[in-house]
């Protein structure tokens, strides 16, 4: 008796161990199947994003190019006279930086902090080997700005290896000489406006896509297969066509001597002198972006609508609901997962747009993506580009999680 019990227990333990092993193997084999993708995306996708976020707060340029001067400023609290040690360290730093051909990096960084630093630094570097102690008056003789507290406060700000300065700049803020955070002067403020404009454009495009796309999705889901397929082709063909092609098409259509204006002038309502400005402004951006993103709204809504059993609505009607009532109380709520997916997709894609506003946006249609590119490729203020990227990414992720919370990831369908 005892024997059998132990035997069956042992057997059971064996069995469960075997099952456990099989499960484990299955788990690990499934895991290893996905591993190459995880590794690939981590290295080639996540790492670059991490890098740019890191750059928005990490800025070692000045401490690398002018290490001794930077060191000399660490203990200075920004009040009173600039430290003599910094003046003393600067000539040798400048000479070293020039011999290593890296002074340009410091020039760029400092000029971002305070316009005018360029010429001060270059002038100082040219005569660095002829300067002699005492250095403070020697620098003052080269350029009187070297004697001012403000110069050295800006220098110290730029020398911070870990800094929130770029995020301040990305919000149109700056630190004044006394370290207080203040609003930038109006003529230099732009990013808050741009962020607002970006989200307003994204919101407007989303609303436009929803109002244009929902009825069509409804039509497609409630018609004969022939018409459904025909309409599907007309939705999918633009969807598969390159963004740059569609943007080009809108340029051709909307420019002053373009097809739309030609038609308008040919009609009795517009005179030759009344050609409309439909492009190179906000209007052009809105039209082109709505066109480009419309399929991203229609397809998810359609895929949800087509799965709504028609007898639900019929049941509501037979129970006495009016047609609008049945729509509002039965059909619309059932189609909401598709609407949510479409709204999320369109909004997120729109907020990150860059190509289309760059080509058809003129000046009033520029979005934050265009300024990220501007600072990446034109001003080379990479820290600011990184901070703008960080804020944009945060905005997009917040939208994403709000939608996931309200709708749920598994209920959203794309294409």
């Amino acid at each position, binding site marked *: 008796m005892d024997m059998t019990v132990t035997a069956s227990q042992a057997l059971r333990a064996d069995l469960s161990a075997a099952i456990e092993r099989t499960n484990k193997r299955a*788990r690990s084999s*499934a895991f290893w199947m*996905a591993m190459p993708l995880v590794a690939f995306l981590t290295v080639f*996708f996540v790492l670059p994003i991490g890098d740019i976020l890191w750059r928005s707060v990490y800025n070692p340029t000045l401490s690398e190019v002018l290490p001794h001067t930077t060191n000399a400023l660490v203990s200075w609290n920004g009040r009173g006279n600039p430290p003599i040690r910094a003046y003393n360290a600067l000539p040798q730093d400048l000479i070293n930086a020039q011999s290593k051909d890296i002074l340009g990096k410091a020039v760029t960084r400092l000029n971002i902090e305070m316009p005018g630093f360029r010429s001060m630094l270059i002038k100082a570097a040219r005569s660095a080997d002829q300067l002699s102690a005492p250095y403070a008056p020697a620098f003052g003789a080269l350029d009187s700005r070297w004697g001012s507290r403000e110069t050295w406060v800006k220098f110290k700000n730029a020398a911070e290896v870990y800094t929130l300065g770029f995020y301040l700049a990305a919000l149109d803020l700056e630190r004044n000489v006394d370290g207080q955070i203040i609003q930038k002067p109006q003529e230099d403020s732009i990013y808050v406006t741009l962020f607002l404009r970006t989200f307003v454009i994204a919101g407007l495009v989303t609303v436009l896509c929803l109002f*244009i796309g929902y009825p069509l999705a409804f*039509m497609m889901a409630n018609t004969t297969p022939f018409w459904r397929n025909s309409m599907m082709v007309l939705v999918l063909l633009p969807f598969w066509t*390159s963004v740059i092609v569609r943007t*080009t098409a809108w340029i*051709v259509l909307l420019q002053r001597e373009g097809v739309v204006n030609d038609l308008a002038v040919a009609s009795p309502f517009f005179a030759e002198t009344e050609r409309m400005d439909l492009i190179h402004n906000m209007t052009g951006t809105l039209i082109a972006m709505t066109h480009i993103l419309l399929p991203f709204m229609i397809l998810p809504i359609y895929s949800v609508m087509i799965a709504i059993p028609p007898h639900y609505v019929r049941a509501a009607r037979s129970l006495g609901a009016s047609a609008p009532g049945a729509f509002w109380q039965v059909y619309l709520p059932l189609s909401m997962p598709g609407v949510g997916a479409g709204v999320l997709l369109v909004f997120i894609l729109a907020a990150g747009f860059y190509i289309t506003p760059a080509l058809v946006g003129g000046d009033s249609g520029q979005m934050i993506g265009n300024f990220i*590119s501007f600072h990446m490729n034109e001003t080379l203020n990479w820290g600011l580009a990184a901070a703008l990227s960080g804020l944009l990414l945060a905005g997009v992720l917040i939208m994403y999680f709000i939608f996931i919370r309200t709708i749920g990831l598994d209920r959203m369908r794309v294409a």
Partner: protein
Amino acid sequence: MSIAEATKPRPRKAFDLGSAGTIAFRAYCLLVLAFLIAPLLVIVPLSFNAEPYFTFTQSMLQLDPTGWSYRWYEELRNNPQWLESVKNSFIVAVFSTLIATVLGTFAAIGLTRPNMPYRGLIMALALSPMIVPVIIVAAGMSFVYGGWGLKQTHLGLILAHATLGIPFVVVTMTATLSTFDRRLSQAAQGLGATPIQSFFEVTFPLIMPGLAAGALFAFATSFDELVTVLFLGGPDQVTIPRQMWSGIREQISPAILAAATLLICVAATLLILVQLAQNQQKSYGGMKS
């Protein structure tokens, strides 16, 4: 169900808008469809314009043969820069599609197994290239890839486009695999097939259409992509969209319209191929039930 539908082809009229309402509604939908397709339809004839204008000339409207010409297509064909860009686009798209498809398919197989650990996390990672604005990714890549010497190389662009194509492969493949009946391959193995045999003889043919659709999505993604090309590509990595970009910004010549028309044809071809693949999938799905 399918027979019932076939015998009753009438629309599912759950809402009755009245005749005026129906007409208004249809007219609205027609307008929307026109909005969607008109830009593409306008580009095609304009690309055959004999004059360097972006609007229809009198002679074009009168269907006068002298108003129409192939000159912009010739310009494309005779311009080494355009030819080079076609070559680059295909090289980058083909190899990035290969990478995305292989990685995405294996991951999708893992993700559809019932006992996949960290499924949500891995799924979120795989889909994130669709969510993060490309401009941010491209900026980050230009630093990191630059540090690795991958900037201004075809390899760099191929890797970048592979990351952007992966979500599409993962989405289509998980959808395909979740409808795939695993008992089929188990049955094959029960009947004496080796796992490899059962994969190639049973599983692969069944998931092939989904695989093709995912690969085509990845191909189209790479073929269209411009932002990472602008940030990572050098003068030797000019792709078709990059060539169009500089064309539009510098001097918009109708040659761009010719290129655009060709790209519309590529898009239509891809669309057709995907639909064929999905039809195939559906017929397998029918077999399954």
